[in-house]
Every structure is written in structure tokens, then in C-alpha cells.
């Protein structure tokens, strides 16, 4: 009996550490899930005189993708976003960037976004709880945030999480 306790305790400790150390501390659960997407009205990246608000997307399921030309992981996820944009409206939130950097970046790497809004001060990104660009939000027809991904999208996450979720939300109407 006594000899059993030690190895059991050890195994329990190993299990605890195995789970604990595998969790990604960067993935902080967002308090915004299930809440209405914070309001914004920002100028477009391509057309500074035009403005876009999250309200303009009411009635549709859409994806908000926070990106910047200075952000290397954004370039990494760009092909995934491009692929995703074939099936769902993806709006870009250009974060703390300069137009003269962001526009050539899109010309070089392709522009999958339905449109990009320009948040040079990063003020709107604070309302969305952005802390690690790129970040991606799925927003439903009623303007409620249903999912958030922090860091670059991988093909796996796009295919197994985002696309099924978008499809499910769309059929729900």
C-alpha cells in the first residue's frame, strides 16, 4: 500500500505538468465571446473618405481579421485568409499601420478582404481586446461575436473550426 502512493503521486504530478505545460498561455479566453461586437466607424484603407461600421454587416455572418503590414505572422496566415475569403466575407482591420505600407503589402500579397478599415491609432482594436496581431473574429447575423482566434490562422483551424462554424451560423439564419 505504502509503495503504491509514491508512484501514484508521481504520475499525478507528471499528468498535471503535462497538461499545464501544453496549454498555450497566450490563448486567453476572450470575454467578448457571446457579446455584441463593439461598435466602430472607421475610414476605409483604400478610400479614406468612405467609412465602414460593424453595423453594415448586420444580417450576415462575417469574419473580422486584424492585420498589419509590420506583422510577420500576418504574412504567414495570409494564404489561409485568402482561402477562407472564398467562402465567407472577410473584413480586414488594419492595425496601427501606415497606408503607404499597408497598400503595397496588399498589392504584393494579394487582397482577399472584402474591404479593410484603417485603425491607425489602434483604439478600436483595444475595444476588441486585441493584443497579439493577427486576430480573427467570427460575427453572426445579429452582430454577436461567436469565436475568436489569437495568432496566425492555420489551415487546420480554418477548416475544422472557422468554416464549420460559419456554415452552421449561416444555416441558422
Amino acid at each position, binding site marked *: 500500500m505504502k509503495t503504491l502512493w509514491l508512484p501514484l503521486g508521481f504520475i499525478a504530478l507528471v499528468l498535471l505538468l503535462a497538461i499545464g505545460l501544453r496549454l498555450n498561455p*497566450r490563448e486567453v479566453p476572450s470575454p467578448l465571446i457571446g457579446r455584441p461586437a463593439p461598435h466602430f466607424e472607421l475610414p476605409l484603407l483604400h478610400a479614406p473618405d468612405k467609412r465602414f461600421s460593424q453595423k453594415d454587416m448586420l444580417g450576415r455572418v462575417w469574419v473580422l481579421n486584424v492585420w498589419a503590414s509590420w506583422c510577420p505572422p500576418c504574412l504567414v496566415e495570409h494564404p489561409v485568409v485568402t482561402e477562407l475569403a472564398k467562402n465567407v466575407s472577410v473584413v480586414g482591420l488594419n492595425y496601427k499601420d501606415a497606408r503607404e505600407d499597408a497598400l503595397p503589402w496588399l498589392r504584393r500579397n494579394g487582397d482577399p478582404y472584402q474591404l479593410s478599415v484603417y485603425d491607425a491609432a489602434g483604439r478600436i482594436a483595444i475595444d476588441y481586446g486585441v493584443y497579439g496581431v493577427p486576430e480573427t473574429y467570427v460575427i453572426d447575423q445579429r452582430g454577436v461575436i461567436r469565436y475568436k482566434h489569437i495568432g496566425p490562422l492555420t489551415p487546420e483551424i480554418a477548416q475544422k473550426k472557422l468554416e464549420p462554424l460559419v456554415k452552421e451560423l449561416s444555416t441558422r439564419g
Partner: protein
Amino acid sequence: MARVLIFFLASLCLPALAQDPDIDKRVAALANELRCLVCQNQTLADSNAPLAVDLRNQIREQLKGGASERDVVDFMVARYGDFVLYRPPLKATTVALWAGPFVILAFGVWLLLRRIARRPAAEAELSEADRARAAKLLE
């Protein structure tokens, strides 16, 4: 002329430098209580990540606008979750965090008590014959 110009330029800088020390103190106190999510083991006060700078400015702006400490903390929690607080609140999800150490302590005390209780009883007194034998051996 140059002196006048320097004086003029310096006076332009003054309003920027002469910030309200009371607000500064409150910003610093709050920034010390909040986590920078970019470099997670630093507070907003310690971090120089661009986001930390933005958030410190945000705190300052809000305090200047008449917000209370509570308002600013609520603002941060609404966006970044309880994780921004260096002192997590006691909630259903954080019970393990608060109670865990005490549970482990209680378990340790229980183990110790059990071990003490199970220790073999002290040796019986020596009999007269044993004493005589010991004395003989020691001679």
C-alpha cells in the same frame, strides 16, 4: 533673438511636461495592477510593448475624463478578461486558485498526523534484569 526663440520653444513644451502629478500617480498605481498581455509576466507599468503604451495612455485619458479606478479596471476586464488583473477575483472559476494551497496544506497536515499516530509506541521500561546486564556490560 536666439534666447527669445529658445524661451518661446521651451514654453511650448511646458504644458506637455507639467502633467497633473495626481493623475500620474493614479495611472502608475493602476498600471502596476494590470497585466500586459503582450509580455504576460510584466505589468502595464513595466512593459514597453506598444500596446502597453497605448493602454497606459488609455488609462490616463479615462482618469482625466473623470473615471474612477473601478471604471478603468472594468474597462480592461470587459476587453481582456480577468487575466489582466494581477489579483484575480474570487469566482467559481478561480476557487481552485485561491483554495488550492490551503487544500494541499490540509492534506500535508493530515499525512503528517497519520504518520505520527502510526509510529510504533516507545520502548517499554527496562526491567531490573536488563539494567543489571547493561551495567555489567559497561563495566
